[in-house]
């Protein structure tokens, strides 16, 4: 059941010649005709265990919409690759069902799923040239030679490697290999493309460039992309939605901004961006806000995102850039802090303080001309709004 033999949802528009490709430019959106927007995927209470003792993936429920760019983000060993492998068909699910376009695929072998895949080490076949690598998926589908060549050319142009068809993968740089891997995963018009840390081996600059290009290709083609990374910046900049994994469980599934602004628990808050943690006990809960008594006795007004009610333990989480030193207006929370360390970072200054017994309390101060002089050892007031500090971690 190959996507393009079943009437392919997505095709190269053969009518448009490469005249549309201006010199060195990417293939324009008009060259690809997105009939529908990729495949939809559904994990229905999927579990996975390798050894029969521990669950690597615990009760995974996940709906991925057509054409969505979904990123699985999480620390090492959290089960991201395992999920991807189950979707690609290389690992059987221990329990539950995976659906591709509403069809259960648990019993479909990998080569019949028609899912494109980009591997972390690219897995370009070393004994084949770039063009042969790209021809491989077309050959196994018995495509006519002329069409093969046309598609290979389009795909190579798309990743700006038109002149490299004759080279062996070993003769390419890391970034070029990565693009070939992307082109190979796309050349047979899959509706769904899986990428397992595809940029992990690249340096920072190249990685940012490739992030942009993959994003661009996704927008042009409309395929569904499931992307795995443990780089949170990558996840935030590329995705429509991010699924934060930890310990085989999705901790939060939401858009990047929600993830950052409204983390559901302190793992997410900690994992996405920088975060200050203060632990204490809920003393009062009144609709919009709650009061939290920190362990050193300080009282805070916080946003009750995920707590159990008065008397329960909680972790208050707040972003370093939302805190003001010596606040001029009157935020809900103002406490004393002692400056432990100043780190000059150009556009801002990181101030490490001791606040409410936590000496890893970070405040980011923008480097403005009118900034007030501060120095290590000073005791200053710090303040923040109640809506910026989230009371998290309901303990059952």
């Amino acid at each position, binding site marked *: 059941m190959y996507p393009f033999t079943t009437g392919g949802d997505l095709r190269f528009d053969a009518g448009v010649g490469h005249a549309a490709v201006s010199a060195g430019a990417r293939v324009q959106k008009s060259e690809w005709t997105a009939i529908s927007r990729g495949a939809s995927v559904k994990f229905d209470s999927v579990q996975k265990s390798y050894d029969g003792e521990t669950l690597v993936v615990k009760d995974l429920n996940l709906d991925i919409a057509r054409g969505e760019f979904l990123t699985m983000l999480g620390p090492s060993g959290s089960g991201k690759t395992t999920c991807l492998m189950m979707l690609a068909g290389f690992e059987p699910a221990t329990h539950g069902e995976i659906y591709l376009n509403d069809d259960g695929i648990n019993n479909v072998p990998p*080569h019949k*799923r028609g899912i494109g895949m980009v*591997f972390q080490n690219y*897995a370009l076949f070393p*004994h084949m040239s770039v063009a042969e690598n790209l021809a*491989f998926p077309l050959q*196994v589908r018995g495509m006519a030679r002329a069409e093969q060549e046309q598609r290979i050319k389009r795909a190579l142009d798309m990743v700006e490697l038109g002149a490299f068809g004759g080279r062996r993968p070993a003769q390419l740089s890391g970034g070029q290999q990565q693009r070939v891997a992307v082109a190979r995963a796309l050349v047979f018009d899959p509706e769904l493309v899986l990428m397992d840390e595809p940029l992990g081996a690249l340096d920072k600059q190249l990685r940012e460039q490739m992030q942009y290009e993959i994003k661009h290709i996704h927008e042009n083609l409309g395929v569904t992309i499931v992307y795995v990374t443990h780089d949170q910046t990558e996840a935030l900049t590329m995705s429509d939605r991010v699924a934060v994994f930890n310990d085989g469980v999705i901790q939060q599934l939401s858009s990047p901004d929600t993830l950052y602004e409204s983390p559901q628990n302190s793992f997410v808050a900690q994992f996405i961006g920088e975060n200050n943690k203060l632990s204490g006990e809920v003393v009062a809960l009144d609709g919009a806000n709650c009061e939290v008594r920190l362990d050193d006795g300080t009282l805070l007004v916080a946003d009750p995102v995920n707590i159990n009610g008065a008397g329960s333990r909680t972790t208050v989480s707040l972003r370093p850039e939302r805190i003001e030193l010596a606040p001029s207006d009157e935020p809900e929370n103002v406490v004393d802090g002692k400056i432990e360390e100043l780190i000059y970072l150009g556009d801002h200054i990181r101030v490490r303080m001791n606040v409410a017994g936590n000496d890893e309390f970070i405040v980011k101060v923008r480097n403005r001309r009118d900034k007030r002089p501060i120095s290590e050892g000073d005791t200053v007031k710090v303040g923040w709004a109640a809506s910026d500090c989230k009371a998290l971690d309901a303990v059952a």
Partner: protein
Amino acid sequence: MSSATDTSTDAIAGDGIVRAADGTPLKRSLARALRREKLRSFLLIAPLLAFVVISFLMPIADMLFRSVENNIVEDTIPETVQTLASWDADSGDLPDERVYAALFQDLQIAVEQRIHTRLGSRLNYEKSGMSGLFRKTGREVRRMEAEGPFKERFIEIDEDWADIEVWAVIKRYSPPYTPGYFLNAVDAELTAEGVEMKPENERIYLMLFWRTLVMSLMITLSCLLLGYPIGYLLSHLPARSANLLMILVLLPFWTSLLVRTSAWKVLLQQQGVINDFLVWINLIDDAGRLVMINNQTGTIIAMTHILLPFMILPLYSVMQTISPSYVRAAKSLGASDWTAFWRVYFPQTVPGIGAGAILVFILAIGYYITPELVGGTSGIFISNRIAYHISTSLNWGLAAALGTILLLLVMALFYVYDRIVGIDNVKLG
């Protein structure tokens, strides 16, 4: 131009030569610095080099030399060789009296030194009966008076001396170098009419070379067929089980070759374990017991067993380096299990196959003990004949010629392999 420019700041002098700080040209000081390095590395490899020269290169050179060397005739009967030079074998006449007189003189000395029989055996390789002729003549020559006519005296001793062919052979083999051994080694001989193939029933070596080649190929092939799945299994098992299996693979190395070969004898002979079993399960009847030893089958079975590790080890080490993600990638691109194996996995194992096949083939082509023990007559290799000529018939020249041809054959096959697969496409790990 200031003097400062000349001396310190500018390494390039007026003549355009780059100089080191002390004024010597940079190239020369670099060479001097490197010479010491080179000398040191040379000293490090010197012992090995000496060993290789003494134990490998010199014996091979000696072998090459022996395969054409033929000083024995000239050294033993120098006068005869000299006088025989003017005799024309095609004339149909026997050599004249001077030659017989020279032979008498030469033999007197040779008999004294007891070297005439060696000449006899040498010439016997070319024409049978020569050994006896010289032994007999040697006995008689002592009692002969130093008076002519020698021709009649010699013919009296043995009428072979009146045979033109005897003299023709002596003359043909009197030069210090001879192609005779090589001709012998390819079942040809030097006759009055030039190089000719030996009579059908005397030919043996070409057939042996051919058999050695074919059987070595068959052994290589069966090693590959048996070893490939094992290598695959080894490289895909978790480390613990792989190590255990590896020990089993290496087990043959730990038992004596002779013990193993004898074990094969016990198993494969007609009254042996395997035949007994086959009779017991009624697959064959008692009269139809299979002949699996003392023939080619025995040689192939036993040598495949012995050489299998040499195939498995390079295969395993190459397969181990092939990431499983290649096959996964192939499958995700739509290839069936077989296509993924054949088009993606297998080509990447070719260097291992090449290394293993070369190793097994080269070892097989020169193998000697196993064919000797389990090969019977139909399963012996060319090396068995070489060994026979070295230790039994003492025809070292022929053994050397056979060895040289074997060496050339292997080199030619290497060349062909290089042409087809590429020698850099061989990986031992």
